């Protein structure tokens, strides 16, 4: 009955309605008006050009991470360690900036090196999870999670130790970098078109890599059936490692952007949870690259839109996370129910 594209849309709509229904009930149980909450979130995210620019600031790292995760998911890997890969990207970028602090090289070159350094840092950190997986038999979920905690500790160690501010070290991070080390931004707005460009190019590259290349085809073969791919002569463990390296590089780019275009220094929570959020986006879009852009924008908008909720409605801003989580959960449940329903019919 409900097949093809129309069926997909109908079921996505059901999942969306289910999620908003559940969240509305939660809000009503707290004596808060759901309509007010949604309206505040809408106005707080896309109500003005300034707000949209804020959403884009969150959108860039989220899209980069999601693009990377599409590669590891294609290879059948759950790269939860992506959060730490963002962090290591930020650390590596900070390291490059510090190294060239007194240098006479043109700032544009230094920024380019810093972002490439960030990508390298993320890729190397991801390769740790990959090596643990392929040579140590450690499931990538657990190896990745452990390394996430280690990466956070490393950040804090650097901020309070070798890279501390002159005088007193604090949770506010390292000394901000001079202005010329910042990715150029639009006048009056915090968003850097360069950062936006990097993220959009990344998602396009990943799309073509997965859809239009032999590499992508083999990667998906490894993801679908590891054993069969191996028997067909695909060097499976190399492909697993490649996917970790690509994802790590893109996550590292996200960390680099956080340093070079957003915070201009290293702070303890530099990854802002974008790694975990990217996993949710990738699941929600059912691992299809084309949908990454609108869904990542929607998630970023929810995050930015909820910032004002504590002031406007005395609600905790974690409402955005609740809404995102319940949305992904409803999509999974509705998809499962649909499969069950159509199989029986």
């Amino acid at each position, binding site marked *: 009955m409900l097949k093809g594209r129309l069926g997909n849309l109908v079921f996505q709509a059901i999942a969306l309605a289910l999620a908003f229904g559940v969240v509305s009930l939660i809000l009503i149980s707290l004596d808060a008006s759901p309509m007010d909450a949604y309206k505040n979130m809408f106005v707080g995210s896309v109500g003005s050009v300034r707000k949209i620019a804020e959403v884009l600031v969150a959108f860039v790292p989220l899209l980069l991470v999601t693009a990377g995760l599409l590669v590891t998911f294609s290879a059948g890997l759950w790269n939860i360690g992506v959060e730490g890969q963002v962090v290591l990207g930020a650390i590596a970028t900070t390291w490059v900036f510090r190294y060239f602090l007194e240098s006479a090289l043109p700032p544009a070159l230094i920024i380019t090196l810093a972002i490439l350094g960030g990508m390298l840092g993320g890729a190397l950190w991801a390769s740790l999870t990959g090596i643990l997986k392929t040579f140590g038999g450690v499931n990538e979920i657990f190896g990745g999670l452990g390394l996430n905690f280690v990466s956070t500790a490393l950040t804090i160690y650097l901020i309070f130790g070798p890279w501390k501010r002159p005088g007193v070290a604090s949770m506010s991070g390292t000394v901000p970098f001079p202005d010329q080390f910042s990715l150029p931004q639009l006048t009056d707005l915090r968003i850097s078109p360069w950062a936006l460009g990097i993220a959009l190019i990344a998602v396009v590259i990943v799309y073509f890599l997965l859809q239009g290349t032999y590499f992508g085809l083999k990667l998906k073969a490894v993801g679908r059936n590891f054993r069969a791919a191996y028997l067909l002569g695909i060097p499976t463990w190399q492909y697993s490692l490649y996917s970790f390296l690509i994802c790590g590089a893109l996550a590292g780019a996200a960390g680099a952007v956080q340093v070079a275009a957003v915070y201009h220094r290293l702070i303890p929570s530099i990854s802002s949870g974008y790694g975990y959020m990217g996993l949710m986006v990738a699941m929600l879009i059912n691992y299809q690259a084309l949908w990454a852009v609108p869904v990542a924008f929607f998630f970023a908008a929810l995050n930015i839109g909820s910032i004002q909720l504590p002031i406007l409605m005395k609600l*905790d801003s974690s409402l955005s996370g609740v809404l995102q989580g319940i949305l992904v959960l409803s999509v999974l449940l509705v998809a499962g129910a649909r499969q069950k329903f159509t199989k029986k019919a």
Partner: protein
Amino acid sequence: MTQETILVGLAGVLAFATPVIFAVLGETLSERAGVINLSMNGTILLSAMGGFAVAYNTDNILLGFLAGMLIGALVALIVAFASITLKQSQVAVGFVLALTCRDLSYFLGNPYMGVPGPRLQAMPVPVLSDIPVIGPLFFRQDAITYLSFISIFLAWVWIFRTRPGLMLLGIGEKPSAAFIRGANVNLMRYIYTVIGGALIGLAGPAFSLAIRAGWMGTISGLDGIGWIALSITIFGGWNPVRGAFGAYLFAFLQWLGLVLQPVLTQVPSQVLQVAPFPLMILTLLLVNIGNAEWVERTLAAMPESVRKFFAKLLRAMRASPPAALGVPFERD
């Protein structure tokens, strides 16, 4: 450091491990039946918040613990329904729930932030608590810690020494064989996942009503404990006693970090707090590396005596998951 302070510290280690013990036992039961409950980190936070809120509003600590168990059971029910009935990926559903329940705990817990509330008091066991060393270590704890001691033992006996436990092992190792012997595989998986979830849900109140009473939101120091418990479950090789040992080892390392802090002043405290994680990765590596193909190949090329030694060493550390872990059961 006097003997007295060391004893108090070690007794604290046993108490601090309590939430992790319940989480590990719950996850062990669930995974033994073949279902990974990856939601654990979120479940623990939500049950910590919910358990405290209920105990605060009713002024009844027991109700708080029951509420925590109920929350854990409900979250596990979602995992079971999505994975067993709807055949969705256990990892995907569990991970989403881990994040959602965490955010939900911060969202709903907002009014309870930093509110002083009820707390479980220590309950020294008469006579036994006066035994030197053993008394202060084991018998001056609170009720929930005693319960954790008993639960480790009961879970072990249940899994390895009873008939239903044998069936449980069968469901996780070879569900088709268990089915032929008359086991309702999917129903049993539902039951063990939900019971396991209730145990995981006990971990939250064991923290928010005992160790550090109250709800502190993002700074309660509880976030992350579920992920640790998940690794400890593997470290424990899906055996309650070995898992409990892992939990105590973890708590001991955390305590050691605190004790060593005044000595290692140049290392920030946050770094010492995460010291168990690299160790955790290392232990996971040791537990798993025996399963890797290249290790077997390398060993085969070694002289007999060396090979025997390493093979024995690896086998002692090795832990293999239940064969049907994460695999949906279909009767055909």
